[in-house]
């Protein structure tokens, strides 16, 4: 059994399917994440309440985190493996190569957007996940008083830096681009193709990618716009 399992893991199709299924988990997470983030628009109580809810049962949170981390590691590991194999399969390059299939920028840059997103995730975790949600960083910059605004305050302070916000926007655009190809691709890889629905999946995939980029970008944009129009007060 284990020998067979090992053999299967080495199969090109299985490797791609692991990438697809771990990607699917990531997509689910990202959609939830975007939805959760949007609560920030409704003020500190909404987002902090949501955060508290997630932390209510630590065991569940850790199980979820483990699944996510495992998915991420597998996704990245197998993608890099597959990419290296693909490079090796085309030993010599063509002097001229014209594409006439459906290759586009999003597809060609999957590995780069993916790597960028990976490092961004590490950065993002140190930025928002690991820090203390009650410490001085959670006090709104420029506001009077020492009241902690919890996660809300942390995010607010962080996005007040315009370059940092721009970096975040760039990063989430990569996420969007990655998803726009990734979602349609994963359907093909796990074997779903339908003469009528596949076209719709492709469209939905592109729309979803754009929505994710937009949804994530809303937060820094909201913070900056609000801060520079209404000032630090909530």
């Amino acid at each position, binding site marked *: 059994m284990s020998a067979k399992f090992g053999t299967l893991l080495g199969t090109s199709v299985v490797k791609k399917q692991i990438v697809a299924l771990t990607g699917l988990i990531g997509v689910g997470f990202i959609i939830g994440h975007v939805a959760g983030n949007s609560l920030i628009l409704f003020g500190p109580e909404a987002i902090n309440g949501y955060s508290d809810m997630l932390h209510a049962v630590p065991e569940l949170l850790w199980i979820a985190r483990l699944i996510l981390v495992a998915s991420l590691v597998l996704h990245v590991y197998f993608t890099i493996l597959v990419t290296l*194999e693909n490079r090796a399969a085309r030993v010599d390059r063509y*002097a001229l190569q014209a594409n006439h299939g459906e290759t586009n920028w999003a597809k060609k840059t999957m590995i780069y957007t993916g790597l960028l997103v990976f490092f961004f995730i590490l950065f993002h975790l140190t930025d928002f996940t690991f820090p203390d949600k009650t410490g001085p960083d959670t006090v709104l910059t420029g506001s009077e008083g020492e009241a902690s605004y919890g996660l809300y305050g942390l995010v607010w302070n962080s996005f007040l830096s315009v370059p940092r916000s721009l970096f975040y926007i760039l990063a989430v655009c990569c996420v969007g681009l990655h998803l726009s190809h990734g979602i349609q691709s994963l359907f093909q890889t796990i074997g779903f193709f339908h003469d009528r629905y596949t076209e719709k999946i492709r469209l939905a995939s592109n729309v979803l990618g754009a929505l994710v980029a937009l949804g994530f970008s809303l937060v820094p944009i909201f913070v900056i716009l609000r801060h520079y129009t209404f000032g630090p007060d909530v």
Partner: protein
Amino acid sequence: MSTKINLTLKVWRQKNAQTPGHFETYQARDIDTDASFLEMLDVVNASLEREGKEPIAFDHDCREGICGSCGAVVNGQAHGPERETTLCQLHMRKFRNGDTVTIEPWRAKGFPLIKDLVVDRSAFDRIIAAGGFITVRTGQAPEAHATPVPKDKADWAMDAAQCIGCGACVAACPNASAMLFVSAKVTHLNVLPQGQPEKTRRVLNMVAQMDKEGFGNCSNHYECEAACPKGISVKNIAKMNRDHLVASIAG
């Protein structure tokens, strides 16, 4: 109506796999636009032979787009610029007087070079040998009408079975993947009732052999479908992925 054109050819010449190759430039003069691409190469080769030089080696046979022997990357496209057309059926009226045409062999680890534009595609035979068949000995067959085949299944099988094994899918794929070729055969046999008993073995064994031959993975760029002279659909790849998933879990 046909006219005559002159072309500059940049052709990959390579004596054998051990010797490094290079581009050689030739002038193709007075080429009739009604000639096929291979007939244009014939003309160039005849002039080389008259000069005592070795002609450009290229595989070809039926010259009517069905045997799958011919193929080269022409100006960066497998089988040249016309869709669903093998190199032998590409005609010179697709080119303009004075054009420069770059001609390269299929380049893939799974297709080692033999000479000039000729590559070794025997990997495809080994993949078929791994499972691209239905095990039925001569004489064992039941009456042909014993098993009806729904028309949509028969049509899908036929769509997939049209593959001519030319290798353009591998040549065009950025990863030199053979998924379109392999999936066309897996699908052809796996959708038919006759192919059901060996469905699981077939997909596992053929994919394993494909990997062993050094082809890359599919990253869903669909260059293969665009290059395929027979218009084989990438939906066959999805079908193979599905069969493989089921086979890995249940098989």
